[in-house]
């Protein structure tokens, strides 16, 4: 049984049918990526999975536990943690305070200290800047902070919404390198990306999403070779 099972989800914004029966599975230890054009419904899918949007039908299970009707803060406790689109760090708080906020659901001090240590080993830059106001960090550092903050919440699975958005190409490489390292250290990741090329390089499997439906899914390597994917998402002709 897959770790995260999203089955036949239908999500609406008012009358707009944004997700039309989507099923996605993520196995423990995997990176799975969802690629798709603007407005395909990628963010909607992540928001539904983390309880922010409620699906009209379908189910979401984590390790067999039914999460579909839970409120977002309960979903976080269950182990699904989002790194929101556009970073969204707390700009007026310091780096340390941001990380502290990430640990909101966990009151075990020793565990939080260990998590902090882990985040600082992963992102030494954050340790150097731990007292700096987060709003003054560079874009890349902010993305590191957003990831670090999510890690503080003891995620079983991390949902990342376009971590490379708005970053210079040099930094994008760094971000994907970090994602790979995170995964090697044992975190399961569901990654939404427009940068399909990079996403398919780190992921094991991928789903192609188009106007609210899954077009097809496959292992990452064959997807990257797929004629249609190459045309539509990798910009090749």
């Amino acid at each position: 049984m897959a770790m995260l099972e999203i089955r036949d989800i239908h999500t609406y914004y008012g009358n707009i049918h944004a997700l039309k029966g989507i099923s996605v599975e993520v196995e423990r230890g995997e990176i799975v990526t969802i690629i798709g054009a603007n407005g395909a419904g990628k963010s909607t899918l992540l928001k539904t999975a983390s309880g922010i949007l409620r699906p009209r039908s379908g189910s979401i299970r984590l390790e067999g536990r039914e999460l579909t009707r839970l409120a977002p803060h309960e979903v976080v406790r269950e182990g699904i943690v989002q790194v929101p689109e556009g970073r969204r760090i707390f700009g007026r708080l310091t780096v340390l305070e941001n990380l502290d906020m990430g640990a909101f659901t966990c009151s075990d001090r020793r565990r939080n200290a260990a998590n902090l240590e882990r985040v600082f080993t992963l992102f030494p830059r954050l340790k150097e800047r731990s007292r700096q106001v987060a709003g003054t960090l560079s874009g890349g550092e902010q993305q590191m902070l957003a990831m670090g903050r999510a890690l503080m919440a003891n995620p079983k699975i991390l949902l990342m919404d376009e971590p490379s958005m708005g970053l210079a190409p040099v930094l994008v490489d760094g971000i994907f390198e970090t994602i790979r390292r995170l995964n090697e250290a044992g975190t399961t990741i569901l990654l939404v990306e427009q940068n399909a090329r990079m996403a398919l390089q780190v992921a094991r499997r991928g789903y192609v999403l188009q106007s609210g439906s899954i077009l097809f899914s496959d292992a990452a390597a064959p997807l990257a070779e797929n004629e249609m994917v190459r045309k539509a998402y990798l910009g090749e002709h």
Partner: protein
Amino acid sequence: MRPETSERLPGLSLGLVAGACLVLLTLIGIVEAFSQREIVSGVLSMGEGLLLFTGLFIAYLAADRGLRSAGAGRALAAGIVCGVAAAALLGGLVLLSRAVNLRQVLINASPAVFQMLLFQQEELLPGLALLGATGLLAGAAAAGLRLLPPVPRKAVTAGLVLVAGLGMLQDTVYPVLSSWGPLGDIADWVFEGLGLSRGGALLLFLAAAAASAAWAVKGQALRGGIEKLSPAGRRGLRFAGLALLAFVLAILPQALGLFLSEVLTIVGLYVLLGLGLNIVVGFAGLLDLGYVAFFAIGSYTVAILTSPELGFFSLGFWQALPFAVLFGVIAGVLLGIPVLKMRGDYLAIATLGFGEIIRILVLSDSLRPWLGGAQGIGKIPKAEIGAFEFAGPQEIYYLILAGCFLVGFISWRLRDSRIGRAWMAVREDEDVAQAMGINLVAAKLLAFATGAGFSALSGAIFASKIGSVYPHSFNVMISINILCVIIVGGIGSMPGVIVGAFALVGLPELLREFAEYRLLVYGAALVAMMLLRPEGLWPEATRRRELHEGEIEPQAEPPAAAAAGRP
């Protein structure tokens, strides 16, 4: 301040601003209203002082700009140009008043005030010359002040502030001081007529300047010394400090007399209300403009439960108090539920409406048998403990003080707790707060409920203090005033609430002439705050950081904090 863009005459633009301010002050009558008070008897009336200090302040800003863009010479030039420009505008006003009858439109443009601007000279020319010379000297003095090194600059400022403050509050300070035995003799010498005596002013100026300079020079060493003390010694010192504070607070109403105690109770009620609203607006970032509704609910609950006039119940104050707070909390939740999804402006409008609904309900004729209608409800009993009755302001003071301590303590504990952290996250970014596992519904409702409970508590005390409740005591201006108190004090900061309440509620109570200009002063204070000190008088740490990030000059302790001797 932004560095000056190339301006041919440095300080001219600020000088015109200063002149416009002074002309406005003159024309709206505030100068004349204040000319009854004197700062230094026979030398400077408060009306003149208002013009002088406003001018000095703006000229100081002009000099500051000049200094930042091109050094000392430019600063001096900017100060002088600013002063002369301001005086020129005032002079122009005087000339205009001779040419046309301004009073037909501006009823406050009286001959007396123009005579004052001419330094009581019979002839126009010498008067105008004196006015111009004063502008020039004041501008030069302001620039000189800016050019002083920090320590003497602060000393002079402290001296001026003390002299101006004590001078204008002569009518409240002098009677109190003169009743204090040996201090009375000194007070008799320091004060004279309706202001300070010349000698007294000089003495006070020197004393404040010396104290400020001594603190600047020795303060660091003193703090270092305290830090070097053993833990036991430090605890002892802290205990002594607290004991002294408790003693002062305990004897305050007796020492200050009836009138000032009344003022203190009003300030205290605003502190209570402010601490409550601070939880909603400052901690959780929910802009609530209907806050007065809970104040009304607290007041009316006590009135209905205790007043024999309605005759439903006749509980005592203490029995009614828990109900008042409870109903406040319930109302807070009831208001909170429908507005859970609203943010910012929408939330402000919705809560504003809620405040009005409550006021209109208690005003309504059909609910009159239960809520008293426009006549309100009277005969509300005073609170009592044993034989001690909280009858007059000197007694109610203790009730309010206890309330402030209770509410302050609870706020402080809440702020540093888990829920305080949740509020901070909600304030910074709701969506992300949710993604961090924070229960938005619970966090928001708790903020509304706590704030409302505090507001209802102050309402209950208010009802018992006044002895009756009327719908018109609960209009939207109360909500606005409380919000102003928090903003001026520093949003989210608890000491800021106290500072803000004294500045915005206490001072106008003492300077009764302000009453007519209260809104003007609030508006001016808010604008000045936004321009000069957007983080508030005693800001909360997060906000101070945000607003001063990237500032090159190391930010010393805020003046309010320094004056209050914060460690």
